[in-house]
């Protein structure tokens, strides 16, 4: 792990701690939160969110489809279509993270259902495990949808300037997928 990545991890841990304290009304934690999310750390955290989403999606695609590049391109195209349907182009930086979360959790659910559908018998614990995995993925996907709906309902006008880049299923041949997170919340 690189030194800069360790710094980002540390900043993320601080963020978790400050969110908990700030939610209970700690004013110094609110001030710290403002610094973390508006400054260079904020940009780095948004960037890490994008990287983690990218890693999760790519790992799922490899687990699902292995070396079948054509099939992977089709799924990536579907994911791109989902982003557009969820309003990617008109969305703020925060909303884009949440859209990416919906896309990533959809892919995870799709994979869990595919594995279950292709299952050719086996032990009862194995069947239970596969069903449990679908349930968990489903819950995670619904939660992702709920968070985006909540944020949109609140029509946030936050004075936090978050500028960062997110990689969205970027492949060398598909640089056009790179989306800017430069919009101001």
């Amino acid at each position: 792990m690189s030194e800069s990545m360790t710094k980002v991890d540390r900043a993320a841990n601080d963020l978790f701690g400050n969110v908990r304290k700030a939610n209970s009304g700690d004013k110094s934690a609110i001030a710290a939160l403002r610094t973390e999310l508006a400054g260079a750390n904020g940009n780095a955290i948004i960037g890490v969110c994008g990287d983690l989403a990218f890693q999760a999606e790519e790992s799922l695609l490899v687990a699902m489809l292995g070396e079948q590049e054509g099939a992977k391109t089709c799924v990536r195209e579907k994911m791109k279509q989902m982003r557009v349907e969820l309003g990617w182009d008109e969305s703020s930086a925060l909303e884009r993270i949440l859209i990416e979360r919906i896309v990533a959790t959809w892919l995870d659910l799709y994979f869990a259902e595919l594995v279950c559908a292709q299952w050719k018998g086996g032990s009862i614990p194995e069947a239970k495990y596969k069903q449990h995995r679908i349930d968990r993925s489903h819950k995670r996907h619904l939660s992702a949808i709920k968070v985006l709906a909540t944020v949109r309902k609140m029509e946030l006008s936050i004075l936090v300037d978050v500028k960062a880049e997110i990689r969205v299923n970027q492949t060398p041949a598909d640089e056009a997928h790179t989306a800017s997170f430069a919009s101001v919340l």
Partner: protein
Amino acid sequence: MREYIGQGPIAELAHQMDVEERLEREAERKAFEAVQRRDAELDRTLDSFVELSNAVTSGLLILAGYHQHKRGNWRMSHERVND
């Protein structure tokens, strides 16, 4: 459990079938364990992203003047809006 099935070619065949069945079960068990390991790895990356996105969302909502009531709904917290 052991079952006596005599001796001779039939017994040898039965033994061979037992061995193959055991190997098959062992292979299935190993494959299942590999699937569980792969799923755990996939979950780790996805969960990191989900947790971090939750923290960023919560942080920005707090800065916008909201607070989360008992880990449930987000409510406007008037006293903090202008802090």
